[in-house]
C-alpha cells in the first residue's frame, strides 16, 4: 500500500484534522496521549484551525464535548481505559442529549490490577450507553472509521455520539502505511457541520436534558435513543457504500475473510483479527476450511450481517478480549443471541477468552481452537468457555511468586 507511515494514534489525529473539527476537549492518558499531542502541535502551529482545551478530568472532558456539540460545533475527543470509566457517567448522559460527536477510545485493560496494555473491557463498559461503536483492525481503518463515524453520528436519523475503538499498543503505537485522503474528497464525503436544531442561540431558547417525572416519559426518551441507534445500521450501509465509491476502500458492517466455503469461522473484534487472518491462511494451507468474521460495528449490533456470515457453517469460534466476570465473553453472548432459533445456525458456538491486558494469542492457540471445534462438531458436545492461558505462563507466575516469597523471608 502506498501512503504515509502513521501510528494508529497518528491516523486518528489526521482524521480529526481532515474532518475539520471545531473543538477538541482533551485529557492525557496512555496509550491515547499521542493523539492529543499531535492535535495540540497542529493547533499551536495553526495547521489545524480547531480550538483545543485540556480539561481537569475525563468526566469534565466528556461534559464539555457534549455541551459544545449541543451548542452546534463539530467535536472530537479521545480517551482510554480508566479515563473512559472516569467519564462513564457522562458517556451515558450525553447520548440522551442526542448530540453527535466522535470519541476515540484507545483500548486498554482496566484496573485492578492496573495495566497499560490492551483489551476490550473498557469499551464494553460503554456498550449499553447509546454511543455507536466502530472497531478498527488497521491504522487505515482508524482514519477512515473516524470519517465514517462523523457521517453516521450527524445523520438526521441517528444523532448519537460515536466511539471509534483502536487497540492500545497493537494499533496505537504500530506504524502502518496509511493512505491520507485529500482534503477535497473528504469535504465531499463529510460536509461542513450543520447542527440544524441542535444548538443554543439567543433567538431560539432550548431546554436540554431536562428531568422527567414518571416512567412513561423516561421510557419514551430511552426508546428513542435505542431506535436511533437501530437506524444507524441502515445509515451505516448507505454511507459505507458512498465511502467505498469515493475512496475505493470498502468497510462493510461485518468483514468476512475466506468464509464462503468455510466450515469453521473465528469471530472477533479489532486488531487481533489480523492475527486471526494469518492463522486462517496457515490453516487453509494445511487443508482446513476456516474463515474469519469481524464485526466493525458493535453498536448497533449488525445482526443481519452476522447471521448471513455464519449461517450454514458448522462451528463459530468467538474470541473475546473481554471478560464479563461470572458470565464470560460479551461478544459470545451477543452472537448467541442473534443465532438462537435461526434455521441453519451453526450447531457449535464456542467461546474463548484471550488477549487480556495485551497478552498475545499465538498461532498455535488458533490451531488448537480449530481442533477443539472439530472435536465438538464430531461429538456434538460443545465444551464450556475457555480462558486462554498456557502452562508456561502459569509456571512463570509461580516463579515470580516464589521469588517474592524468598525475598520477603530474607527481610524478616
Amino acid at each position, binding site marked *: 500500500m502506498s501512503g504515509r507511515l502513521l501510528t494508529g494514534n497518528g491516523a486518528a489525529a489526521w482524521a480529526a484534522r481532515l474532518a475539520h473539527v*471545531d*473543538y477538541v*476537549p482533551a485529557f492525557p492518558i496512555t496509550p491515547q496521549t499521542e493523539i492529543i499531542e499531535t492535535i495540540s502541535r497542529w493547533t499551536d502551529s495553526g495547521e489545524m484551525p480547531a*480550538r483545543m*482545551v485540556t*480539561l*481537569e*478530568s475525563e*468526566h*469534565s*472532558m466528556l*461534559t*464539555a*464535548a*457534549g*455541551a*459544545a*456539540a*449541543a*451548542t*452546534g*460545533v463539530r467535536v472530537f475527543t479521545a480517551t482510554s481505559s480508566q479515563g473512559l470509566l472516569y467519564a462513564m*457517567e*457522562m458517556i451515558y*448522559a450525553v447520548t440522551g*442529549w442526542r448530540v453527535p460527536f466522535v470519541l476515540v477510545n484507545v483500548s486498554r485493560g482496566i484496573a485492578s490490577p492496573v495495566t497499560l496494555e490492551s483489551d476490550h473491557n473498557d469499551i464494553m463498559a460503554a456498550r449499553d450507553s447509546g454511543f455507536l461503536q466502530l472497531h478498527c483492525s488497521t491504522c487505515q481503518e482508524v482514519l477512515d472509521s473516524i470519517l465514517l463515524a462523523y457521517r453516521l453520528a450527524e445523520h438526521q436519523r441517528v444523532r448519537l455520539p460515536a466511539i471509534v475503538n483502536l487497540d492500545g499498543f497493537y494499533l496505537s503505537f504500530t506504524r502502518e502505511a496509511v493512505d491520507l485522503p485529500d482534503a477535497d474528497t473528504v469535504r465531499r464525503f463529510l460536509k461542513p457541520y450543520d447542527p440544524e436544531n441542535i444548538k*443554543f*442561540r*439567543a*433567538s431560539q*431558547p*432550548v*431546554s*436540554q*436534558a*431536562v*428531568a*422527567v*417525572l414518571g416512567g412513561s*416519559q423516561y421510557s419514551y426518551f430511552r426508546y428513542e435513543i435505542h431506535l436511533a441507534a437501530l437506524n444507524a445500521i441502515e445509515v451505516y450501509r448507505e454511507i459505507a457504500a458512498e465511502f467505498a465509491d469515493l475512496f475505493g476502500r470498502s468497510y462493510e458492517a461485518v468483514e468476512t475473510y475466506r468464509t464462503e466455503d468455510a466450515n469453521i469461522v473465528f469471530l472477533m473484534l479489532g486488531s487481533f483479527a489480523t492475527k486471526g487472518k494469518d492463522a486462517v491462511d496457515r490453516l487453509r494451507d494445511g487443508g482446513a476450511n476456516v474463515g474469519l468474521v469481524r464485526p466493525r460495528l458493535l453498536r448497533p449490533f449488525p445482526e443481519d450481517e452476522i447471521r448471513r456470515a455464519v449461517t450454514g457453517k458448522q462451528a463459530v469460534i468467538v474470541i473475546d478480549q473481554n471478560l464479563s466476570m461470572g458470565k464470560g465473553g460479551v461478544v459470545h453472548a451477543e452472537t448467541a443471541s442473534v443465532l438462537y432459533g435461526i434455521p441453519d445456525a451453526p450447531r457449535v458456538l464456542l467461546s474463548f477468552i484471550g488477549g487480556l491486558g495485551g497478552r498475545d494469542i499465538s498461532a498455535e492457540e488458533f490451531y488448537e481452537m480449530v481442533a477443539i471445534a472439530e472435536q465438538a462438531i464430531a461429538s456434538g458436545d460443545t465444551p464450556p468457555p475457555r480462558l486462554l492461558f498456557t502452562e508456561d505462563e502459569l509456571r512463570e507466575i509461580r516463579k515470580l511468586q516464589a521469588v517474592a516469597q524468598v525475598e520477603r523471608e530474607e527481610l524478616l
Partner: protein
Amino acid sequence: MKETILKRMKDLPSVHLLGGGTAMCAGCGALGALHEIYDVLGEKTVFINAAGCMTLLANYPFTPFRGSWLYTAMASAPAGAQGVRDALDILLEQKRISSDENLEAVVLTGDGAAYGMGLSATSGAIERGLDFIYLCYDNEGYGNTGQQFSAATPHAARTSTSTGPAGYSGYKKDLFAIWAAHRPAYVATVIGAEPVDLSRKIETARSLKGPRLILALAPCPTGWGYDPELSIDVGKLAVQTGIWPLKEYIDGQVQHTKVPKARRPVEDYLRLQGRFAHLFEPQRQDKLIDEIQGRVDAYWQNAAG
C-alpha cells in the same frame, strides 16, 4: 468596574422573567434569589445545571426560564459551561453566528456540587479563565435528598445525618476564600432578603468577563425547619447577626458591602430554626452558642482590620 445604577428598591427591574408554578418548596430562599438574579441577568443566558433542588425547575415539557437550559451532572456543570462558551466563541469567531445570538453561560448548582463534588471542575474552569458566571444557591446541606450535611453545613446544625446532641461537628467550608485564592474576575456573597445589594452585584458581575461566583445563602424552610413565611426574616437575620457577611472580591480586594452596624446576637438567628433547636431545648448549650458567636465576632474583628 462599571458604576451600577442600582441603588434603591425602585431601581430594580419591574418586569419579572422567571415563570411561577415550579416544583420548589414554599418559601424557598434559593428560588427567591434566582428570581431576583434572573431579572438582572435576563434571558440571553444558558443555565448549565448540576444535580440539586433546582434541577427540578425544568421538568419535561415545562421550564420557568425564557432562555436556555442544559442539565449536566452533579460534578461537572463548569465543564458544561466550558463546552458551551467555547462553542459559542468558535461560532462567533468564524462568523457562523451574529453577536445577537450570543449567550451568557451561567452555572447553577447547590452547595453540594459547589463546595464538594464539583470543586475540581470549578477550580479547573477558573484556572482556564473561563468566561462564565457560577451561581451557587447555598442551603447548607444536600437539600434535595432531605438535608444531609454537606461541606457547607454550619457547625452544630442538625441535619438528617448529624442528629446527635451537638449537631454537625464540622465547620462550613469557606468557598468565597477558595474562589478568591484562584484570583478570578469576581466573587460575591448575596442573599435574596437583600435585593438591592444582590442586584447591584449581579449587575457588576454582568459587566465583567472571566470566572465570576455569586454565592447566595438560600434559607430553606424544609431543611432548616422554620415556617416558609419566615424566609425573608431568616435571611435578614443571617446578615444582621453577621453570620452571612455580604461582600465582594474584585481586583484582588475584598470589600464588605453591607456591614451590620450593631450586630444582633447569633441566638436571634439560631432560635428561629429547627436545625438549631437542640441548642436551646431540652437545655441550653451555652458552649456551642458561645462558640458560634465567638467565630462570628472573630470574623468581623479580622474584617475590620
